[in-house]
């Protein structure tokens, strides 16, 4: 699916994660800032990528600022960002959740 508009979810507070999705041209591209990049960078990307796949998004610029979020938080923020980016906030995709 195509990203219709740039969308943001999450905050920069401790234990949260901020995800901004915008139109991409070259698959899924990540720009990740995290204090635990070395330890969990790949896990964070994988979690977000799985959510994007569930929404059938295969091209996006994903800007992520992680402040030590746990996996369920990352997933929740990613889902919200996707729904906002696809302009379907009012039609939740239960099979993705």
């Amino acid at each position, binding site marked *: 699916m195509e990203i219709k508009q*740039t*969308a*943001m979810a999450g*905050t*920069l*507070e*401790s234990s949260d994660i*901020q995800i*901004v999705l*915008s139109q991409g041209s070259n698959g899924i591209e990540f720009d990740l*800032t995290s*204090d635990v990049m070395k330890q969990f960078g790949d896990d964070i990307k994988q979690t977000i990528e799985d959510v994007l796949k569930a929404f059938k998004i295969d091209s996006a*610029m994903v*800007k*992520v*600022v992680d*402040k030590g979020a746990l996996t369920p938080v990352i997933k929740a923020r990613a889902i919200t960002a996707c729904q906002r980016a696809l302009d379907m906030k009012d039609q939740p995709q239960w099979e993705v959740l």
Partner: protein
Amino acid sequence: MAETIQELYLHNPMIKKRWENFLKDRGITVFADQEVDTIDQTIGLFDEQDNLVGTGSIAGKTIKYIAVSDDGSGESGSRFNQLVSALEMKLAEAGHFQIFVFTKPQYETSFQHVGFNTLAKTDYGLILEKGTPNIDTYRKGLPQKPEGAKSTVAIVMNANPFTKGHRYLVEKAAKENDCVYVFVVNQDVSLFTTQERTQLVEEGTKDWDNVLVANGGDYMVSYLSFPAYFIKDQDNAIKYQTALDASLFKNQLAKPLGIQTRYLGTEPTSHTTNLYNETLKTILPPEVDVKEIPRLTAGSGQNVVSAREVRALIKDGSIEPLAQYVPETTANFIKENLDLLQKRILKGQKINGN
């Protein structure tokens, strides 16, 4: 800890006083109207006792006047992050996902921790950027220079409108080099709109195929990198801002694009532009050369060709003398649109600026 974010309405004098005092205690002392008036929204962070412990403002797509109180409890970092989140949320609601920050060099890491990238840094100031589009997407969108081009140079111009003087400068650069980037200033505050200015530059430089015309985006002589160019200001502010503009050009554009020289016209009449040229000459070398070309003179050789002169003629409606100042393409455009241009002047568009 329950600290809450509330909006601060600065048109209330009591609130404004409190806000100013808070910032003054933290080393921010400039409250010139031209800075404060551009603020769209201000938020404050309050602790349980209703003390102001942090504030930040947005103006267009830039974050300004951000400060938090550091009472030694170790909360200042989390307060800062909370404020930046809230400001970003507000900017996102307004549809801005490209965000800029002007700040002091010592706060570079605080902003980098919340995802900002440094665009330019001098001893006195710092510009950071976050979001998309950004400098990378801007660079990717520029026209590609031909393969095998050895000497690549750049000219930045407002071209309000494109004159024979601009053409002379471009011609000189085009003859001496393999490839010339002409960046047209993006800020739309001039008599001629950005689209018109770009169109006239494109038409006026058609004869050379090694000239690439591009929009300067947010990165060249824009409100962001160089507000004083558009707002008359003290010399120090100009020096400070031109230094940022020059270092942004050098590091983010000249280096990645392989631009070796920047061409300038000498500036006998405009004070701001003259200071700008001086700054470019101090900051760009040795990596990027600066070549200053004497201005083209009109007629008997007394008057330099300047776009300001042309705008004065448009105001008076005198079409005849235009031919000695502007190339045919620009003259034709002015003839066809004289009414429209004069109407803009009547409406209050300033014509005696840069």
